[in-house]
């Protein structure tokens, strides 16, 4: 078997796609600026009836779910010690770190008083689900950055080259990096396990968030097992997200995709998705809420789309070897699951939510949509930038000098 080694990808940064994404990002940033100058009310369609919009439903709730690749691959590679998957851990880690960073930024811009974002660190309300989600996400974000540090040290050890008069510090910085690297190597397992635990906690608590809305939430989604459903769907979407990303990255950088690894991953998705589906269907059967599906309402239509295209069809696809053997098949199945989870979060937070006194229904404004699209574009741009600077994507290495830092962090 040929050896794989993570390395910075040297390519031209600006391609037509990148330029298009930059335009989207810029457009989003302009509306973001407007939000800080004119207030939330001026840029969004939020009202007292619908206090939360797509900045929470998509940017935060779906963002957290779609960053699940970070903890699922960490569990697979480091905790289960499936070494063959190490090639996918770094891209997944980077996506998670970027994803959670943008979640934090999205929360920040949606807060009425962003400058008080640190308050939950001091003012605890143990009964508040949001408090739990907030604290877990803050700690997990820190853990993600720590998990990313070895990639930074690997990139710069032996290559420190400060400009100008700082040159004399080169060897000192190098020493510090080596020290840091060694310390990280010994303690990384603490952070890896913590990362998985924290993820399980806040992924499920995110599901508990809307439980308190009680009858404001449509019965198709309002269930006491929401936390379990959120956790299961996050676990199920982690690997499809990684597969999709890996296919896009290799296509965009002209690399050969690791189809055999991706196929193995895809084979693990089917049972995970199956478990989620079983609980989801079991839930509407036991609570007998399937009766709501017999009438045609926005809720029933959205629920059907979510379940059919986001879970049932991709599950059927993944069970067919023909699909998992083809790149296109893998891509479509993963894409559907990703969209399915995105829809599910949007449905839970927006479609299912109907306040008792409603005079106007909520539809996101141009400003809200622009900011959301802009953030997604920015995330992709950062991803591309990072994989060009840091050793993240693995490429086959013909002459294989054993990479010293390949399996950083596990118990050795």
């Amino acid at each position, binding site marked *: 078997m040929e050896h794989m080694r993570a390395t910075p990808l040297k390519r031209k940064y600006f391609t037509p796609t990148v330029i298009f994404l930059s335009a989207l990002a810029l457009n989003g940033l302009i509306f973001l600026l407007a939000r800080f100058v004119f207030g939330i009310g001026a840029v969004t369609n939020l009202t007292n009836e619908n206090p939360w919009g797509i900045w929470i439903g998509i940017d935060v709730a779906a963002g957290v779910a779609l960053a699940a690749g970070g903890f699922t691959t960490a569990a697979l590679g480091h905790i289960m010690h499936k070494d063959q998957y190490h090639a996918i851990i770094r891209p997944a880690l980077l996506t998670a770190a970027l994803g959670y960073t943008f979640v934090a930024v999205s929360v920040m811009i949606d807060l009425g008083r962003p400058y008080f974002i640190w308050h939950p660190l001091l003012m605890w309300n143990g009964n508040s689900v949001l408090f739990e989600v907030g604290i877990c996400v803050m700690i997990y974000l820190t853990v993600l950055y720590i998990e990313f540090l070895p990639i930074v040290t690997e990139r710069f050890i032996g290559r420190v080259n400060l400009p100008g008069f700082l040159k004399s510090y080169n060897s000192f910085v190098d020493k510090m990096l080596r020290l840091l690297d060694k310390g990280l190597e010994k303690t990384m*397992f603490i952070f890896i396990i913590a990362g998985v635990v924290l993820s399980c906690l806040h992924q499920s608590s995110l599901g508990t968030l809307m439980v308190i809305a009680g009858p404001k939430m449509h019965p198709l989604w309002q269930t006491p097992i929401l936390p379990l459903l959120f956790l299961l769907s996050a676990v199920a979407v982690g690997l499809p997200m990684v597969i999709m990303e890996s296919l896009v990255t290799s296509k965009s950088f002209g690399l050969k995709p690791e189809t055999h690894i991706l196929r193995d991953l895809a084979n693990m998705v089917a049972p995970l998705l199956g478990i989620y589906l079983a609980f989801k269907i079991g839930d509407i059967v036991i609570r007998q809420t399937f009766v709501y599906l017999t009438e045609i309402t926005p809720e029933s239509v959205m629920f059907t789309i979510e379940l059919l295209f986001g879970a049932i069809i991709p599950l059927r696809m993944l069970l067919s070897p023909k699909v998992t053997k083809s790149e296109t098949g893998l891509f479509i199945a993963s894409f559907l699951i990703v969209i399915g989870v995105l829809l599910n979060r949007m449905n839970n937070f927006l479609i299912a939510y109907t306040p008792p006194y409603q005079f106007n229904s909520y539809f996101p404004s141009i400003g809200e949509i622009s900011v959301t699209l802009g953030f997604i574009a920015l995330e992709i741009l950062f991803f591309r930038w990072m994989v060009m600077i840091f050793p993240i994507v693995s490429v086959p290495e013909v002459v294989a000098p054993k990479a010293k830092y390949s399996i950083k962090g596990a118990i050795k």
Partner: protein
Amino acid sequence: MKEISRRNFLKFAGVSSATVLAAGDKPVKAAPKNILADNRMGALVDTTTCIGCRKCEWACKTAHDMPTPSIDTYADRMVFNKMRRPDDTALTIVNEYKNDAANQFPINVKFQCMHCDRPACVSACIVGAFTKEENGAVIWDTDKCIGCRYCMVACPFQIPAFEFSEVLKPDIKKCDFCFDRTQQGLIPACSEICPMEVITYGRRKDLIDAAHQKIKNYPDRYLNHVFGEEEVGGTSWLYLASKDFNKIGFPKLGKDPAPGVSEAIQHGIFAYFVPPIALYALLGGVMWINKNKKISDEEKEL
């Protein structure tokens, strides 16, 4: 190298189980103040006597230093053509509902925060900016609020309003049961001004008794239901009416306290941090076993 890490690992495991033991006998940290004093106050609204003069709206704004036109303008009954809700410019509002019975006056209903006994807003608020006070009032602290609006998502009566047009320091606005006034021994401004004595301020217990007495004395006049006595676990504001409450603007709600299920789930997941730490230990064990298995596999290969 291998040895050191294993030792670190065991040390860490030891520390975490010690933490569990230490945490075991302490109550969960800093839940917000949520006291239900037996002699807490309440307000009973008899919707059958309200004439819709909206003087209570004016008094409320005046008591809270909110901008308001002169009291004469409130006589204009055109506002009743549209259903209104309390918001950031009006903490209480009066709506008018048609009375189907022939030759009957329309029904006017004053509405504001219900000051729940088990308030969803208090349970939900991420920083504990909402508190249930001993006298029954549910009040909000501007120095804590971060503006996340989760309280709005949680409130079963859709009461907390947010100043969406405010850029720098938007507030959450809702009726505070005239907390400043009641602290000084005054009664709420709306109750004080009402010419028809629609709003009775008093001990919640007494009010419930009085309400049931009224129903008993005038069974034709009142529906046998005191809204707020049991809804969402009880509220400080209580209502009497002649007509189905759902037809005069009250949401259909059960008797369970609004935050009940979510708090139970939340505390189940965390229960003194035992489940997370157990999961941590489990994953650590799995990691350790897998690592050892891999080492022995490699040794076999050699």
